[in-house]
Structures are given as C-alpha cells and as structure tokens.
C-alpha cells in the first residue's frame, strides 16, 4: 500500500431544517456528517459501516463531489475536489469507486443488467474492448450465480437477493480493474459480514462521526469502541451451537436525532461505560492506551466479541 490518494479532513455536512412555506426560516441543522477525517490509500478498499442515519451515505456523496461539504475538505492528489470540474472530476470518480450495498436504490431502474455491469468497462475501455464486453458481462453473471441469459432484464425483474448479486458482480468487475489500475474503493454497507469479506480497512460510523477505524483484523478481532463491540455482538451467527457461548451486548433505546446529538461523546446515551467525562469532552479519534488503532472512546479497551477462525 502506498501513500494516501484521498485525504479527508474535518469533513462536515449539515442540512438545514426549515419551517414555513413562503417565509422559510432555518430552525435547525441535521448534522449528517460532523467532523470526519481519514485517508484512502491507492488500491485499497475501505468499508464504511454503521446503522441507518449514521451519515455513511452522505459521506459517500460528499466524497464523489455530488454534494458540497459545509466545512472541511476532501483532497485528491493534492487538490481540493470542490474545485475540480469536467475531466478532472471524471478522473477522480474513475479512480475512486463507490459501491453501495442497498440493492434497491443503487441500481438504475432504466438500465438493463447488461448495461449496469458493462458500465465499468465503458469507463475503462482498455480492459475489455467493445466486442468482448457482452461476453465479459455474461461471465460475471455466471460467477455470482445469476443466469447469463438474463442479461437483458431490468433490476425490477430480480428479487432482492439477486439484486444484491448484481451489486456484487459490479464490484467484481471493478476488482479486476483494481489489480490493474490500483483503483481505490469506498464500500458503504450495513452488513458487517459482507464488509469483512471485501475490505482492507473498515471505518465504523455513529451519528455523523467515525468512532473507530482500522484494518479488518483490528476492527473484527480487537474492537475497542463500545459501539463497534455492540454492533459486532448483534450480528447473528448462523450456527446454533454458538447460542450460549457468544458475547451478547444489547444496546437500549434508539439512535438520538442528528439534529440535536448528545454533548460530548455521541454514543454516551446508550453506552454502559459512560462517565461524567463522556458528557463533557468529545473523545478524539486517536490511538489510545489499550488500543492499537484509532478509537474515539475515553475508555477504549480491547474486547473479543467474535471468535474468529480461519477457514
């Protein structure tokens, strides 16, 4: 892995909450992304996980310059992306690929599966010349267990699971490219098991902030933030013999509103470790005692949640 190709610094994206029809006034801000920093290395896949409303999709939109950040910057090869346009912007979007997990909103309903899967090759014509593209797409469909005959079908003609496979096929199309061109991926997902399979590094988000970031092993085998630990412990393991020897952490309540997040640590209202300091001081995302990778918890502590074994 080489140096960072993308540098995200103190990124903030707020959306105004307005009241009134004719005379609109702003009554608050949805703090969708609220101070996020990380680096993306050339050729790596960064998984971003978190539950609905944590800001992962907004983060993705800002990274691709589909939205302007409220504050902070995204620097691509030394250049702030909000200043890019035209060809330079297209080059950025080609170099950094975004994969969304949701199979319902990430596939264009007006495109056939053939078009959807062929698109990456359209952008990188060097990989598959025009003539061989259909064959390449059929190969991908077969690879993920879909019928190559269905190349002309539209997304709505597939079930949820099959759509997910189309998304995976698209990621695979890109994987071949990743090797050849050193592409970087940002993989946005809520399924922690899938992220583990595809990512080199993982960032865990909660209410607009990254609470923990590290390599796949660091996050899955040595999580130190209570939220990461709770998230991992909530994933059902498809093995009934594990019923009684699993660490179970159950969070109570719901995620607070991003319009008025809790003071200090945003997770403190649901955290079993919370002390006074958590309400007063925002914990920084940094390497702490008891953690070998950045964790935004005043009381970061290693804890094994998932008994991982090699297969």
């Amino acid at each position, binding site marked *: 892995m080489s140096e960072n190709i993308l540098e995200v610094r103190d990124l903030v994206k707020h959306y105004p909450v307005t009241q009134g029809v004719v005379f609109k006034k702003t009554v608050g801000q949805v703090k969708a992304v609220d101070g996020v920093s990380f680096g993306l290395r050339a050729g790596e896949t960064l998984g971003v996980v978190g*539950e*609905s409303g944590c800001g992962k999709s907004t983060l993705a939109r800002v990274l691709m310059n589909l939205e302007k950040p409220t504050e902070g910057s995204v620097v691509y090869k030394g250049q702030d992306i909000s200043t890019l346009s035209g060809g330079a912007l297209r080059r950025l979007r080609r170099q950094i690929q975004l994969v969304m997990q949701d199979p319902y909103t990430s596939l264009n309903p007006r495109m056939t599966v053939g078009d959807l899967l062929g698109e990456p090759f359209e952008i990188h014509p060097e990989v598959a010349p025009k003539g061989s593209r259909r064959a390449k797409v059929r190969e991908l469909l077969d690879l*993920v*267990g*879909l*019928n190559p005959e269905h190349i002309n079908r539209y997304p709505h003609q597939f*079930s*949820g*699971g*099959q759509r997910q*496979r189309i998304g995976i096929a698209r990621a695979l199309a890109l994987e071949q490219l990743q090797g050849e061109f050193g592409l970087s991926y940002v993989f946005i997902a*809520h*399924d*922690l*098991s*899938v992220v*583990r*399979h595809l990512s080199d590094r993982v960032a865990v988000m909660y209410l607009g902030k990254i609470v923990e970031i590290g390599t796949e092993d660091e996050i*899955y085998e040595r999580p130190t933030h209570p939220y990461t630990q*709770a*998230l*991992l*412990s*909530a*994933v*059902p*393991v*498809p*093995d*009934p*013999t*594990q*019923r009684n020897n699993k660490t*179970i952490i*159950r*969070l*109570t*309540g*719901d995620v607070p509103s991003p319009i008025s997040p809790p003071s200090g640590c945003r997770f403190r209202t649901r955290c079993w470790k919370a002390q006074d300091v958590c309400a007063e001081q925002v914990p920084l995302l940094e390497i702490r005692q008891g953690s070998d990778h950045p964790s935004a918890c005043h009381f970061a502590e290693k804890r094994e949640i*998932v*008994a*991982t*074994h*090699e*297969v």
Partner: protein
Amino acid sequence: MSDILVSEQSASGPGGSGRPSGRLLEVDDLRVEFRTRDGVAKVINGVTYHVDAGETLAVLGESGSGKSVTAQTIMGILDTPPGFVTGGQVRFHGKDMLRMSDEERRRIRGEGIAMIFQDALSALNPVFTVGFQIAEQFRVRRGMGRAEAKKRAIDMLDQVKIPNAKGRFNNYPHQFSGGMRQRAMIAMSLALDPEVLIADEPTTALDVTVQAQIMDLLAELQRERQMGMILITHDLGVVADVADRIAVMYAGRIVEEADVYDLYAKPAHPYTMGLIESIPRLDEKGQQLRTIKGLPPNLMNIPPGCPFNPRCPMAQPVCRETIPPLLQVGNARASACHFAEELVNRV
C-alpha cells in the same frame, strides 16, 4: 387488526387426513394456487407442518417459496381472488379452520392466532394513535370501557418495553422510530393473549442492533406466555439463535424439516446445504462463499420431478422424473431428496 375475510372455504373437498392429534396448530397437505390472467401459479403444493405451545418453528425460504402465503392462509387473510385454497387443512386445536364460518374464524384471529408483519408502518393505521389501535381490541373484543381499555393498552406498551408508555399512548405511528413501531405492533398482536404468534420477517427492515433487541423481546414474551411461534424468515443467522425446529420451503413445498442443531450440522437436502454455504459469516476469515446457481422455478411452470433439480449439483436422471416425497431420515427429521440418506450418512 383488519377485517379482511376469505370467502374461499376449502373449495375442493377433503384434502387432509382430518384426524385430531392434540396439536396446537397444524397445516396439513395445504395447496394454494393463484389464478391470474397469465395462467395458474401453483404457489403451495402440499405443505405440512405444525407448531406446539412454547415452541418456535422457523419457516425458511427465498422470496416466492410460499412461506408467507402459507401464513396468510392460516390467518385467513389470503387475497381471494387471485389466491384459492385447492386442498388440505389448517387445524387449530384439531378443528379445520378452512371450514369454519367467518364469525368463528374472526374469533380465533387475535385470541387464538395473531400475526406480526415486516413493515410495521404499513401494518399500523396512520390516522389513529398507536394507543387507540391497541385499546380498540379491548373495547371491541373484551367489551371494556374507554378508561379500562386505555389502562390495558398502556400496560401492553410497557410489556414491549416502550419507554414512557403513558406519554406515548397518544402518538401516531409516524412519530415512532422503526424499532418502536415494531414493538407497538407486537403489543397489538399480543393484546388478546394469542396461543400462536406468526412473525413474518419481523426484523428484516431493521438495523442490526435493533433487530437483536426485537428478537430478544419476542423470545422473552414467547417464553413467558408459552406461545407457539412460527418465525418466517430468509435469514439463517436469526434462525440459528431462536428456532427449535426448522422447515425449509422451496417452490411451495417443504424440502427439509429438522431440529435446528441437526439442520446446521448436517443438512439433509442439497438446497439447505446451498443456503448454509452461501452466507457470509462474521466469524470466519478467508471463507469461500458459494452460491446456488440459477433461479427458483416459475410457479406457473414447475419442472417435472424434484423442483430443485435444475439447480442441484447432485441431480441424477431420477430427479428429473419423480417428485421426492418428504420422508423421515434418521430420527426426528425429514427430507424431500432422493439422496437424503447419503447426505445424512456422509462423514
């Protein structure tokens, strides 16, 4: 709860065996078809399962396998047309519900058997408060007065652990978060203390930490009340945590039924095996994922022989000719595969 009723009362004569067996709820050789403009889709092709008090039966299958239609038939909320029951029985305490009068069935709904759905927002009525919708049952079915019904409804909201139940009584469904709505729906379905609860993908639309909360709640309530529970899902992870027995459905048939431990340890049907091998696991590193090739069959044109044969890696000529019946293999498990014995006896 809505008052949609099914007019179809077991159209084509006796299908099931009709013997009373002391079981709580039994589905016996049920057959359902959907008559559409494009043709007749055979959605349920002889499904048999049962659930007893205090037990959780998981019904597992892909979309279109018929798991939800079976549940709708049990509840009497199958849309007719296009759906028609063409055979079999659904017995509650030994009595065939498909032959009951509308009035008898209505009495069972809610008090005998209740159901919760995947999408709580569309299952709850948006123009009435959550509290009103729960209290309504006590007023209509138990003849309680307004004040007493309200007290009982708040008590139900408390039981499903909705914080500040009293204050929440007058909230509308849209004022609840996804997890809270699911809790409200559970409160509503359990209000009349049913003996059987059917949960149709109860956590599919929820985030994982909330899913864990809801599954814990359901398991706890089931234990307390000794309900029979039918959990309909496609998620092998959730099933592993809570089920006692599992029935796997494919193309409108049960292809395997087994104790939860047996099923995961040694599936006796290639379809079950495919399902288990295709889940990405959080606790495995470097796992090779496999997929089941191909698609489930078109229910208007189910292939001859075993409906799974076009996708089955083990298929032999016999599989294309003869439909394998669901037969016992070993003790207390059954499989509808010609090669079930070999699968179970492999090392």
